[in-house]
Structure formats: C-alpha cells, structure tokens
C-alpha cells in the first residue's frame, strides 16, 4: 500500500510547486501593499492610507470602474462558457470520429485564433465588423472574446479526451444507453477535469484581453483592462492597485466557497 503512495510522489515536486506559487504571488504582494500607499506613486512609499479604497468606491471614476469590472466579469463568464461548450463539442467530434471530413482543416481552424497575432485580429475584426454593419459595443466584444477563447478551452479538453478510451461509452451503449445518455452519464464526467481546466484558461484569457477589446469596443463601453490601461500613461496609480486587490479578494472568495462546497459534499457522502 505504501508503495503506491511512494510512486505518486517525487522528491522536489512539492518544493517546485511552492516556488511556482511564490513567483505567482510575490508581485501580488506588491499590488496589495501599494494599494494602501498614501502617495500617488507606486514606486515611493508615503505611509499607510485607505484613501484609494475610498476613491474606488466613492471617487469620480467609481461608476466607470464599477461598470468596467461588471462588463469584464460578465463577458469573461459568458465568453468562457460559450467557448467551452463549443470546444467540448468540437473535441468530441475530433477525437471520436476518425473519418470526419476535413479533420486537419478543422484542427487548423480551431487553433487559428491562437495563431493570428492579436493586433491583426483586432484590426481585421474592426474592419470586418464595420463592413457587415455590426455596430461596435458589448456584443462585438463578446463575439471577439468567444472566438479567441476557443483554442484555450479546446486544447486541455482534447488532451484529456485522448486518454479516455471509447470502451466506456461502448459499454454504456451495450447496456442500452442512448448516445445522449452515454455522453452525459459516462463521457462528460470523465472529461470534467479537462473541461474545468479549459474553462479556467478561457476565463482568465478573456479577463485579461486589452488589444482586441480596445479595437472592437464601441464608444463609452469599457472593460477593466481598457479602463486600467489609461492610468498607465500617467504611471499606475494606487487606485488601480486597490481595484486589483478587491478583485483578488473576490477570487479568493470563490476559492473558499468552492473549497467549502467540496467539503460539504464530502461530509454528506460520509454520512450517507
């Protein structure tokens, strides 16, 4: 028994993971600390202050940032969801039907959004949208985001699918499950880690996009990156740090919730 656990662990992997987290979180410490900076500069410390949080909630730009954050989050959730659904369906087709017509072409197409340089997508989309009379605004941002999120969702899902033999579904079908049931009850749960990874990647890539969004967004609509990039021209101000810290808090909240939810699920299982 102990041999199995032994084979799971490799010396140094824990340390590397912790190093990984250190690299990921060290800059965030800077963000958090400087959100409490009294000075307007991010490079000089001017004493502790909550003024930037006050600014975020009650300042003149508060409505703008609130709206931008809302837009960013809704677009990211919707774009990641749509992209994940499209990617799941594509992955099933690509991995389960060897003789699908034009598989290579489909493969190239799905990865196309990844391969085209961002600025080209941005300019080309803007020209294209205005050519077909699709007015720029929330809808154009959403469409553009769905498109470039697809490969980010697809690749982890397809990688996962590769290790799932179709014998599971065959067995289900032998037991008179309909194809839909076989998919929903057998394949989908097995795909879940891939789907979750794909969704997360699509979500963060959408949340972060500046260049394409800045071109295809219409007048008067902002996402967080487009609202934030402005401040950079004047040097990042601590209010941006405060907003970022608040976003972090929200995301930490999500993690805590998901942890608690999984614990509750666990406890219920134990009881029953």
């Amino acid at each position, binding site marked *: 028994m102990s041999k199995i656990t032994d084979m*799971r662990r490799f010396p140094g992997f824990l340390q590397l993971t912790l190093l990984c987290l250190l690299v990921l979180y060290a800059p965030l410490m800077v963000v958090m600390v400087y959100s409490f900076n009294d000075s307007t500069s991010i490079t000089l410390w001017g004493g502790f202050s909550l003024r930037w949080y006050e600014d975020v909630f009650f300042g003149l730009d508060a409505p703008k940032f609130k709206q931008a954050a809302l837009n960013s989050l809704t677009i990211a959730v919707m774009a990641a969801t749509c992209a994940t*659904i499209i990617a799941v369906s594509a992955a099933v087709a690509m991995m389960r039907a*060897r003789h699908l017509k034009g598989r290579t072409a489909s493969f190239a197409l799905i990865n196309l959004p990844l391969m085209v340089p961002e600025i080209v997508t941005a300019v080309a989309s803007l020209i294209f949208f205005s050519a077909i009379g699709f007015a720029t605004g929330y809808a154009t941002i959403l469409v553009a985001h769905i498109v470039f999120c697809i490969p980010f969702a697809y690749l982890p899902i397809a990688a996962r699918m590769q290790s799932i033999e179709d014998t599971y579904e*065959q067995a289900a079908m032998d037991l008179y499950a309909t194809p839909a049931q076989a998919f929903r009850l057998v394949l989908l749960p097995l795909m879940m880690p891939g789907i979750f*990874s794909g969704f997360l990647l699509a979500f963060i890539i959408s949340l972060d996009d500046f260049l394409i969004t800045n071109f295809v967004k219409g007048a008067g609509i902002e996402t967080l990156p487009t609202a934030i990039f402005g401040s950079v021209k004047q040097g990042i101000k601590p209010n941006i740090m405060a907003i970022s810290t608040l976003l972090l808090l929200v995301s930490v909240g999500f993690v805590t919730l998901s942890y608690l939810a999984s614990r509750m699920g666990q406890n219920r299982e134990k009881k029953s």
Partner: protein
Amino acid sequence: MAGGIANASESAGIYKGRAGLLILPSWLVIGFFLLLPVGMMLIYSFLTKEFRGGVIWEFSLAAYDQFFFNRGLFGDEPPQIEWTYINIFWRSLWQAGLATLFCLIIGFPTAWFIATRVPRHRTVWLLLITIPYWVNLLIRTVSMKFLIRDTGPMNEFLIWLGAIGEPLQLVNTNIAVQLGLFYSYLPFMVLPIYASAERYNFALSEAAADLYAGRWTTLRLIILPAVKPGIIAGSILVFVPSLGAFLAPDLLGGAKTFMIGSLIEEQFKGNAGNWPFGAAASIILLSIVMTVLIFYARSQTRREAR
C-alpha cells in the same frame, strides 16, 4: 496529438453522423468571425499600401519584397537577402521556445503535484494557480518589474542575506523577459498537463515498481508518455502566445529590439502605418506555426494508424 487530430478511436460508431454537427459550431463561429477577417488580411498583404494606414486596391508584392529583400536604405542597391525580419522572427521563436521550456520544467511537477492530491483539494490548488490571473497582466508585469529592480525588494533581500554583494541587474535583460513570459503563461502549461495527469493509472507505476523500475525511470518511461497529450497542449498554449507577447519584452526587456508582436503592431499602430507589410508578416508567421502544427498532427495520425 494534444489538440488532437490523432488518436481518434477507430470503432466509434456512437457519434457516427453526428460528428459533422458537433464540429459545426466551431466552423460557424471561428469561420465567420475570424477566418473571413483573416482571409481579408491575406488579400491586404497583396495590395498596395496607402500612406499612413489603409490599402489601395491594386495588386502588389511590395510587402513580401520588403520582408525578404534588402535594397539598401534608399532602395536603389541590388537586392540582397533581408536578414532584419528573419532575425526578428528567429529571436522571437527562440525566446518563446525558451519560455515554453521553463514553463514545462516548473509546470510539469506542479501539475503532477496537484493531480496527486486528494480529489477535493485539486480544485482548490487549480484555483490557487489561476487566482493571480484575475489581476491584469499589465499590473502584474509592472509589479514584477518593481520586485526585481536594482534597488527593489528582491535585490535588497539577497544583499541582506549576504548572498550577493552588488545588486543583480535584471531589468532590461533577457532574463527579465524570460521571467515575465514564464509568469505570464505558467497556468497555460499547468492546467492541460493536470487534465492529462489526473487520468493517470497508478497501477502502471505500481507494475513498474514491481519490475524494480526506480521512480525516475518510471517518470521517464511511463508517466511522461502517458501525459504527453497534456504536455503538447500546454506547450502550444505557452509557445504561440509567447511569440506575439509584447508586454514582457517592452516593460521588462526595455523594448530595445523588435519582437514579432511589436514589429507587427508597429505596422498598424506606429508611424509606419504599413498595413500590407503588417498583414504579410502575420501571414508568414501564421504559415510557419500552422505548418509545424499540421505536420506534427499528421505524423501523429500516421503513427496511431499503424
């Protein structure tokens, strides 16, 4: 292959007749909203440039000529091979490759570590890896720069430790760019590998151990091949975006040389305003990356078929 066209099951009659329908949404969405615009860019690359942005609808090979041939500063010398852009491409490819390697070296153990946690902790670990990405990349990159500055906390800490006497000059070097790229794209390596590794059957490791294979032998001969699809997916997701990245090279590297991303951006947003050239450079980049990818995918399919 990861993104796979390889490894489709021979006998899957389940989705027979439905596969076309399942792939249709991707074709509709990407085909309409990206393939058409990119096709337009392909046409643009063969048109005459309009001064300060835009195109004139006259056929021209000037963009490709500019990319491949050097006619001197004043354009009247006999044409020679132009190395400028090839060098820029090569530099970017090299840098992206290196970033991919670093992400893999750190990302694989991390992914493996997460995949071997008890199931209910896995989600939390995954979220922990992605939380930092809720903060905008620009801000993270600026903060990273702050940390590694000559007089920044990292150098002060190392000096305090006595590990170094003089501050390390990292900002405006390639090391900083690598650090920035690593930092920008790490989860794109970790998550796909996790998705693959989570499915790993530990009976295989056990069997290997029974045959007196050591840990590292098992890792090399059994585990790595098993999670290969994840590694390839992750490598694509790190490599390709790194090619076009400009925040890390600009902010951490000092923007002293063009990368593919900044070169193409300059053609659309800079003084040059040379859209056909920007389009041509993108099409060349697209062709290179796509060819490699498809070539690889095909060779995989053939291997599986055997």
